[in-house]
Structure formats: structure tokens, C-alpha cells
């Protein structure tokens, strides 16, 4: 169990975290969702004992995390946002170096390194220098380097930044598997799809404050609508934005309009009106509301703003 109690962290004039509290259960895959600069990485740095909080404390199974407490770091594996690898060394050399910091015996370490390289499907490239790897391969190795000491808790700080969809899916699968094996995972992201796909429970963070925490379905229930309507942009629909506004709030996306319907909207009335105005059904899509919509609902801002 990870207990984050009334944590405040300031950097000069900026309050990165403002009195936040969270409880993360054992074997949970917990998502921390927020835009860039919200305070996610600061919280990760506190969780790993890289920095100390100005106020409050973080406990893992009752033991306090701090810069001074080195032993507790054996329970934690950090997957940094950056590719924290030595480019001029081979994948195997990288893992052996990072593994050695946890005092793993030489023979055991060799087996562990081989195992982790197999896990991230890089065993065949173990002798190749990291600089010859693609971005996705580096991300997978970045994950493997954090698992060498078999940590109980895995902290993933936006581990899929700049990754191709294939590698992203692979990383998701590794994490789901690790979670199934009993690992507690905290996953920070500003991609709502990632949080939706991976995390059983989510906290939304913005400007250093936790805005809401809960199970995804429950959080989405806070919205006053259960569906969102997407209307493709075309010559006709661009002229009819006034019409759409009579059914709810319109968000102007790059290639579509997103309609957040009012409470009273009946879909039958909406489709009838569309038909009357010559807008065909192919241009319209009904979806469940997303975390993006929830974030907008809670903060009044888009996640990417």
C-alpha cells in the first residue's frame, strides 16, 4: 500500500504539488492523468526518493520514502520519461550496469538480464549498441532496465512518449502482464486513451492538485451525459453549427465537431433534425464520453491545452 499524505512541493516560486493525498492499493494499476506541467513527474520523483517533499509524507507499507532512505528503493522500479540508457553501450551492458547497482550476484544478474531482454523481445539484439535501436526498442529496453531487481512497485512516467503504436501496444501488454503477476503499477500519462485502456483507478491532476480520483466508470458517471456525438466536418455541417448548438455544447475539433448533449436530448429528435437538414447518418458517430471530456468538465480546459 502506498500512502501519499498531504504532500506539498515547491520549486522557487512554483508550487508543483499542493497538499495532495492519495492511497494506492497493492497490485493496483493506478493511472495519474494530467496535462504537461500538472505535477505528475514531481510526484514520481517524490515516490522514488529523488527529492524530498516540503510538507507531508509518502509511505510504502508504512515506511517513509525520502532521499536518505536508500533501502526502500529496492521495492521500486522507475521507468523514467527520458530514455535513461547509455547509447554507446550494448543493451546487455546497459542492463548489467543498472542491475549491478542493486547488488545482484554476477551469475544471477546474467540470467536476470537475459530474462528481461527476452521479455521485451530484444534478446537477439543484446550485443547491439543502443544507439542503433529504434525509438520503440529503446523504450522497451528502458522498461526492462527498471525491472532487473524485481521491484514490487513499478513507477512508469509517461513510458510511451514518442513510440510507434506497435511498441506502445507491446509496452501495454508487458505492464498488464506484470500487474497480473502482482506488481503495483503507477502509470502517469497525458494520453487519456492510455489511462482508459490500462488503469483500473485514476487520479486526475492539474496545477499540482488532485481534481478527482476513482474508478474510471464512476468518474465518467459524474458527467451529465452518457453519450457524446461526433459529427464529421464537411461542406454542409460547417454551415449548420448553429443547429448543433441547439442540442448541446459544441467543441470544434480539427476534422469534426464533438457535441456534448444537454440533459434533455432525445437521440430520436436529434437524428430527425439532422435528416431534415440533409445531414446523412454516415457523418454522425455516437460514443461513450472519454476522460478528455471528463477533464474538460472538471477543469474547463482541454487536456492538451
Amino acid at each position, binding site marked *: 500500500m502506498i500512502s501519499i499524505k498531504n504532500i506539498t512541493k515547491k520549486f522557487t516560486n512554483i508550487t508543483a504539488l499542493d497538499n495532495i493525498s492519495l492511497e494506492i492499493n497493492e497490485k493496483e494499476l493506478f493511472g495519474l492523468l494530467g496535462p504537461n506541467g500538472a505535477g505528475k513527474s514531481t510526484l514520481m520523483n517524490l515516490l*522514488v526518493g529523488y527529492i524530498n517533499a516540503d510538507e507531508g509524507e509518502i509511505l510504502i507499507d508504512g515506511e517513509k520514502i525520502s*532521499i*536518505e532512505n536508500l*533501502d526502500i*528503493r529496492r521495492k521500486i522500479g*522507475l521507468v*523514467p520519461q*527520458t530514455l535513461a540508457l*547509455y547509447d554507446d553501450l550494448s543493451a546487455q551492458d546497459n542492463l548489467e550496469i543498472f542491475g549491478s547497482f*542493486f547488488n545482484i550476484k554476477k551469475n544471477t544478474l546474467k540470467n536476470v538480464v537475459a530474462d528481461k531482454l527476452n521479455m521485451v523481445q530484444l534478446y537477439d539484439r543484446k550485443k547491439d549498441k543502443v544507439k542503433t535501436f529504434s525509438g520503440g526498442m529503446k523504450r522497451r529496453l528502458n522498461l526492462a532496465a527498471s525491472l532487473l531487481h524485481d521491484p514490487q512497485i513499478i513507477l512508469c512516467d509517461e513510458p510511451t512518449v514518442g513510440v510507434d503504436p506497435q511498441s506502445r501496444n507491446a509496452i501495454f501488454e508487458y505492464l498488464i502482464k506484470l500487474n497480473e503477476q502482482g506488481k503495483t503499477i503507477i502509470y502517469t500519462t497525458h494520453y487519456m486513451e492510455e489511462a482508459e485502456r490500462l488503469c483500473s483507478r485514476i487520479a486526475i491532476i492539474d496545477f499540482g492538485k488532485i481534481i478527482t480520483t476513482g474508478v474510471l466508470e464512476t468518474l465518467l458517471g459524474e458527467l451529465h451525459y452518457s453519450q457524446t456525438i461526433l459529427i464529421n466536418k464537411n461542406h454542409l455541417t460547417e454551415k449548420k453549427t448553429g443547429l448543433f448548438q441547439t442540442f448541446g455544447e459544441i467543441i470544434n475539433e480539427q476534422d469534426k465537431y464533438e457535441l456534448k448533449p444537454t440533459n434533455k436530448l432525445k437521440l430520436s429528435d436529434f437524428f430527425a433534425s439532422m435528416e431534415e437538414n440533409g445531414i446523412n447518418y454516415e457523418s454522425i458517430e455516437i460514443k461513450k464520453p472519454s476522460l478528455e471530456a471528463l477533464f474538460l468538465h472538471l477543469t474547463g480546459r482541454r487536456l492538451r491545452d
Partner: protein
Amino acid sequence: MKTILKLIKKDYILFWHDKPAVGLTFLVPIVLIYIFGSIFSGGGSPQGIRLAFINSSNATVAKKIETALDTSSTFQLIKTYTNDQGKKVTFDTNSVKDFIRRGNASAALVIPADAFTDTSTSLRLKFYYDPKNNIEMQMIQGLLTQTIMTEIPSVFISSMQRKAEGYLGMEKGSNFNKQIASVISKYYKVDTAEILHGMQFAYTDSVDSDTSRKAGNFFSNILQMDKKQLVGANVTSPDATRSVGGWAVMFLLFTLTGTSTSLFDESKSGVILRILSSPISRVQILWSKYLYNISLGCIQLFVLFFLGYLLFNINIFSNFLNLVLMIIAASAASTAFGMLLAAFCKTAAQANGLGTFLVLTMSAVGGAWFPTFILPPFIQVISKLTIVYWAVEGFLKVLWNGYGFIDILPYLGALIGIAAVVNLVSLWKFKRGTIL
């Protein structure tokens, strides 16, 4: 053309924002031009060269030489030393030799009691020296000879007169003078007695310095300088032995600046964060960096000295233990310098740019390229604040003078002292910085 101008403007903006590049483009050449200009332009002639000095002669010319050297800004005459009881004592021949052997000065001029007597046909001086730096010794000898020559016209005249008298006899010599005076009197209508008086006067002290300077080339026969090398006579490869320390220290500084600033790369890539997420503390990271750099510096210096042994037969094994101590001290101080750069700079580019500037400047003023005595006096003071100066001098003492542990303690102490102070400052800065 407008497009090209825009592109040029863009490059200037980028260049101006790259402070290390601006520094390397302007600051480094300006400083080096100033230093070299000070050395090779007229205004930069050496000043205050330490010259041990004994004058045991009563001859007028000896007194004149002493006065000339005393009043010259080129030399700083040292006539006394502090003995074991802490008292100032005037040099004798043995103590002045010991003074040179101990490296307190590079040369000594001794004017013996019989330097120039009533019967002398030449001026006899003794010169003891330690050619630890070839350029320095050549310059000292040249400047010393020049100073002496301008003050000994009387010796030249007397010498010629005595040689003539020795060849012709006293009476014939006197008659020869009278006949010369008579001939001059006849053609120039001048009184013979006046001419003879002038000749007599000339035999003593009265030739003006301009005349004497013009006659400089003739004087070499009448100045007998008995030279004796007191230190380094057995050094197998003098030139290589003199220069190896300076160059080795310069490259050591370059290497350790580069490796110390690798902290920036590790910090930027997130590797430091990864390391600190394992059971490793910041202090352990700093210690590991420091010890790694010292060991790398030791290996580099040993390889360079060993190469000197293989290629130039520099004798590194006769005083090996002290050489090892100097290598460790120089590496420790140079590593501290690199860590200081890492602590104070904000980026690797800034640290490397500033590092290049400081290493080149320290090498120039610290004696890695040329002896420090030819630098302007205030730069000589600055040179003593550099790692290069103490390292170069220390290596010379070990390899050239063959000094033991006690004698190299000041150099070891200075380097370790610099390392300790610089490390404390770096540690203080690291605690406040963001690199770790």
C-alpha cells in the same frame, strides 16, 4: 539576396546565443594573444629574474657589475640566504651552489676575489646554473653577458694595454704611446700632454657606454665565464624531461574536464535519475565520479610518462615513488577543477567552452608551454594560483632535480590544497544546483 541576409542573420543570432562559442571565438584568442604579445614584444622583456650573487673582489669593475645588476630591473640579486638557525647569511661558494641545487634560483654569478687584479688581462667570473628550462637559461646567460659587457670597457682597455706591455715591455710601450701622441698632436694641433692624459684616463674608467656597446663583440675574449651545471647533468634526455610534465598536465586537464562534465549528459538523459532510483546516494555518485577521474588521470599521466621513457629515454624509474605521488596529486587537483566546472556551469557545452578557455590560459601562464619568468610580473603572480604551475614545477623537481619526498612536499601540498578547497566549493555548489 534578402533571403541570404536573413539566413546570415539567423546564424549570427544562433552564434550569439551560444555563449561558449562566442567565448572560444573571441575571449580565448584575446587572452592568448595578450600573453604571447607580452612575451615576444619589447615591452614584455623578463623582469626580476632571481640571480644568486657573490662579489668577493675589490676591483672597481666588480663593483660596477654589482651596481649594474642591482639597479637592473631584469635581475633580482640574492646575496643572502636563511640558514638552519633562521639567520640571514651572506652566500659563500658552497652555500650558493646548494641554493641552486635546491631550486631556489636557476643561476648564480660569483665574482671571485681574483676576478680582476692588477696583472689580469681578462675578467674571470664563475657561473653556476640549473638548466631546468633551456629557454630560461639561454636568456639569463644572454642578458647577464649583455649587462656585464656594458660595464667593463675599462677592463678591455686595460687588458689591451697590459697585453701590449707584456709583448713590448714597459719602456717600449710608454714610448709607443708618446710617439702616437706626437703624431696626433702634429696633425690635429692638440697638446701632447693632453693626449697622453686622455689615453691614461681611457685606460681606467672613462670610455662611454655607447662606445663599449659597439665594442661588445671584442669583449668576449677578455670575459672568461667559468660555467658549471649543478643540476641535471646526468639527465639522459634533458629537453624531453623538461617538457613532458607541462604537456602531460595540459592534456590531463582537458581529459578530466571532459569526463567531469559527463554528469551533464547523464543528468540530461535521465541516467542520474535512474541511478538515484537505486540504493545509491548523491554523495556516492560524486565520490565515484571524483575517484574515477583521479584514477583515469593517473592512468593517463602514467601512460604519457611511460611513453616518454620509451620514446625519449626519460628516466621515470629512478625517482618513481615520488613521481607516482606527483601524478596522484596532479590528477586530484585537475579532477577538482573539472568538478568545479560541472558544479558551476549549467550545460555541458558551457562547461566545455569555459574549460577549454581556462585550460589553455592556465597552460600558458602556468609554465606548460614556456617558462613563467618571461611573463609580466603580475601574470607570474597569477601563475602561482594555477594547478599547471605547481604540477609542472613538481614534475620538474622529481624528474630533473631528482628531489625526494620532503623536497616535493610544497608541490604536493599546493596541489592537494587546491584540490581540497576547490572540492569544498564544488560540493557546496552541487548541493544548491540541479545537476544532481
